[in-house]
């Protein structure tokens, strides 16, 4: 333990650069963990909206076990300052960022800039030695199985990640966070100045600061979750895509060409909750980490019936995609023959419509412009969004609420005077109890501005799905829990959870998180039994955070996303709490988590068994054939 540089920088925050200039590194206030899981700050001149926001309120505490268990050497890239070149990253178009612009650092501080540069040079050479030390080949325990065992530093404390969006604006504010922004801007600009280098990541003790340069915007994430650099870069990439979905790339570029001090906060006004829900999603949704779709598990025949109803008539000629979602997952989607939809666009779209602005809106229908950046980063399409079912799917809902579009339910015919609180369906029905939360939404993406045509057509779709019983069947499936599955259904001893990605379908499937990873249930328990200490409530969140981070570490390793020398076929990590393994083959990627008491051979056996089971269930687990038009 004492051999790791980590022990030399015991404080987790406040010292991003070991040996760096302490006077400029007073980052403490903005970097200190807050009560929220994620923190987003959009910063630009004159924007007072340092909107730090909470999308989640469990910040798990440290459990002592892990700390003493950390004896394994850290992975090769876990320490020191790393500034790596842009590697081949499948999802990241690094090249487009080059030469568009450079960050303006606060004017008139050439000296401090030079100081910083010198310090950074020192720390860079410092890194050489530690890198040598840390890059010892990982030991292979079991040669027969030919597993690559990745030493893993177990983190058991998941303080909220912090996200920053910076612009080229000079910082004129003098508060603490402004100095942090200025520092980040300076760091970015120093490297660009030097040799058009792009700063990617700084490691400071357990804290990693990741940068993504997408001029005129610059993204920074600060995390101490111990995930590989590629993970948080991916987060930042998604954050960028979501911002583009709000303003489009061309508009953004024009704005900042016209005025370098354009106010990004104002430009994104009203979209804060979309960005926040995205950050929340990024923490937990493995479909985003694996750049794939996680569709709703459903009977093949029912899925096909629903899809048939969605095929647009020739009249709706501007229609681009029609998507049916349930509980945040795609049920089916219909597309033109020549367009496949990029998973990232789908995530951006689903995240947008599930933002509280739309999901909890009393409106019957929302009609909003959205840019799907992988489809066309420079233009908007229009999205028709109609939540046919919303909130608790209690017994009496479906007939009334779905056969007629949701509006009728919320507008009693010709009321006599302002009606006494006739609540819109599902809203404010806090009272806990039976009935799973259900929401089913119809989304129609149109290239044209004609709402009436889209609405008329969507109404007919809803009618069709209602009259042939497909919608009710879907509601029933969701309500009875048939659309999710437990890992116990597989009957594989010791198996706790897995994620299977079908590479040809670009889709994943995974069982629900259960003990010890079941965050939701644990939260409920804590709410109901408030006399218990709050601490136990947080162990599931910590466990889930740990598992997801492990999966991400495996994913990163088998794809060599963070500048590793090469990708791997198999990767195994054992912690005190569980064993995980990542396995990539031609048709699939598989990540399994088992009890740590089981031997490696059992892990491999379980992986094979999962692959067989998924193969058998493929039709229900994946969206395999949706109609085109």
């Amino acid at each position, binding site marked *: 333990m004492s051999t790791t540089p980590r022990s030399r920088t015991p404080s987790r925050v406040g010292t991003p650069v070991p040996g760096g200039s302490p006077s400029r590194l007073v980052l403490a206030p903005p970097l200190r963990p807050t009560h929220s899981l994620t923190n987003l700050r959009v910063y630009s001149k004159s924007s007072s909206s340092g909107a730090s926001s909470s999308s989640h309120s469990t910040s798990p505490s440290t459990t002592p076990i892990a700390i003493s268990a950390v004896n394994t050497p850290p992975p090769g890239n876990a320490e020191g300052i790393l500034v790596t070149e842009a590697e081949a990253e499948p999802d990241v178009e690094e090249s487009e960022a080059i030469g568009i612009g450079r960050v303006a650092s606060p004017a008139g501080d050439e000296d401090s800039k030079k100081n910083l540069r010198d310090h950074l040079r020192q720390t860079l050479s410092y890194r050489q030695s530690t890198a040598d030390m840390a890059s010892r080949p990982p030991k292979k325990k079991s040669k027969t199985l030919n597993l690559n065992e990745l030493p893993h530093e177990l983190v058991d404390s998941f303080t909220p990640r912090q996200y920053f969006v910076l612009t080229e604006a000079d910082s004129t504010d003098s508060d603490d966070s402004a100095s942090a922004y200025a520092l980040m801007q300076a760091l970015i600009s120093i490297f660009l100045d030097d040799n058009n280098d792009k700063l990617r990541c700084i490691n400071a003790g357990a804290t990693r600061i990741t940068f993504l340069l997408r001029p005129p915007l610059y993204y920074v994430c600060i995390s101490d979750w111990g995930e590989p650099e590629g993970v948080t870069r991916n987060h930042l990439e998604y954050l960028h895509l979501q911002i583009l979905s709000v303003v489009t790339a061309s508009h953004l570029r024009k704005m900042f060409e016209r005025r370098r001090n354009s106010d990004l906060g104002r430009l994104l006004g*009203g979209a804060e909750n979309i960005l926040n829900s995205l950050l929340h999603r990024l923490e937990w949704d493995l479909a985003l980490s694996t750049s794939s779709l996680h569709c709703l598990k459903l009977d093949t025949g029912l899925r096909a019936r629903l899809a048939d109803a969605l095929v647009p008539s020739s009249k709706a000629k501007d229609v681009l995609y029609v998507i049916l979602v349930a509980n945040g997952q795609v049920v089916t989607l219909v597309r033109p023959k020549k367009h496949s939809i990029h998973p990232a666009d789908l995530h951006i779209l689903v995240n947008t419509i599930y933002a509280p602005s739309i999901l909890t809106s009393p409106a*019957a229908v*929302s009609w909003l*412009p959205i840019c799907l950046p992988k489809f066309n980063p420079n233009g908007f399409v229009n999205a028709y969004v109609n939540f046919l079912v919303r909130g608790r799917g209690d017994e009496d809902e479906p007939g009334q609420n779905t056969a007629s579009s949701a509006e009728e339910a919320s507008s009693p015919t*010709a009321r006599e005077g302002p009606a006494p609180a006739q*609540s819109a369906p599902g809203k404010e029905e806090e009272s806990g109890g039976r009935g799973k939360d259900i929401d089913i939404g119809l989304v129609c993406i149109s290239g044209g501005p004609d709402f009436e045509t889209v609405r008329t057509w969507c109404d007919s779709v809803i009618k069709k799905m209602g009259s042939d019983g497909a919608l009710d069947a879907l509601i029933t499936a969701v309500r009875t829990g048939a659309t999710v599955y437990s890992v116990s259904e597989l009957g594989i001893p010791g198996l706790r959870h897995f994620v299977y990605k079908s590479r040809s379908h670009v889709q994943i499937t995974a069982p629900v998180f259960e003990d010890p990873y079941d965050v939701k249930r644990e939260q409920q328990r804590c709410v109901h039994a408030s006399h218990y200490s709050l601490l136990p409530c947080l162990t599931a969140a910590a466990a889930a955070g740990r598992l997801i981070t492990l999966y991400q570490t495996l994913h990163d390793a088998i794809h060599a996303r963070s500048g590793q020398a090469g990708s791997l076929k198999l990767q195994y990590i054992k912690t005190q709490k569980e064993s995980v393994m990542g396995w990539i083959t031609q048709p699939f990627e598989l990540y399994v988590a088992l009890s740590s008491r089981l031997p490696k051979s059992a892990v491999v056996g379980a992986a094979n068994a999962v692959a067989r089971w998924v193969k058998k269930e493929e039709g229900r687990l994946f969206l395999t054939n949706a109609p085109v038009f």
Partner: protein
Amino acid sequence: MAESGSGAADKSVQVKLVLLGEAAVGKSSIVLRFVSNEFQANKEPTIGAAFLTQKCRLEDRVLRYEIWDTAGQERFHSLAPMYYRNAQAAVVVYDVTKASSLEKAKSWVKELQRQANPNIVIALAGNKVDLVQPSPSASGSGSAVESEDEADDATATPGENAAAAEQPESLRQVPRDEAEAYAKEAGLLFFETSAKTGEGVVEIFTEIAKKIPIEHILASSRGTGRPGAAGRSGGAQEGGVNLEENAAKGKDACNC
């Protein structure tokens, strides 16, 4: 649902109405109050536009409002024509505690009068009036001074006024007189409203309903089912407003 084109079936007249105004003045809250008689504090900002419907009975007629509740952020401004095109009515909302929001409202009015349906009925609504009134819970009477022009009927006892009324009224940035004078000059219906308490909200829609040339819509929708489209080509009714109607507000609210 299948309301489109089937207006004749339930004898209701479809009226397309759009809400415009600066961000965070309370457009969605006004609609929510009107449609569901609810109020949500800290409402999330609207994205794009939300579409709602509400029926409103006026004497022997049933109006079916098709309401476009638009997002107020500047970046959505360029989309507004899509929503006010063919609208028969518009509610332009400002916040009585924010002077700049009235300026924004005026520019919306100007744009509507220039580019929207020439027959469009426009209402100006100064929302959040509850913020400039003493809270009714402070005392039983709740009759403290509201604004200058209503001071005469507010025969409050001096003692409670000092505590309850002074603070709220100081939040007001748009005097009622000023906004009302502007509305009169521009030919708009005028209301001060509180989506929170419900004050004045239903009246907006009632008064609009009275002013809408219903016969005209009925006549033109018979053919097309798209009343707005036809309404546009119809005889240009003068944009002027009969202020008597405004004065009569509240007397016979449409029982919506």
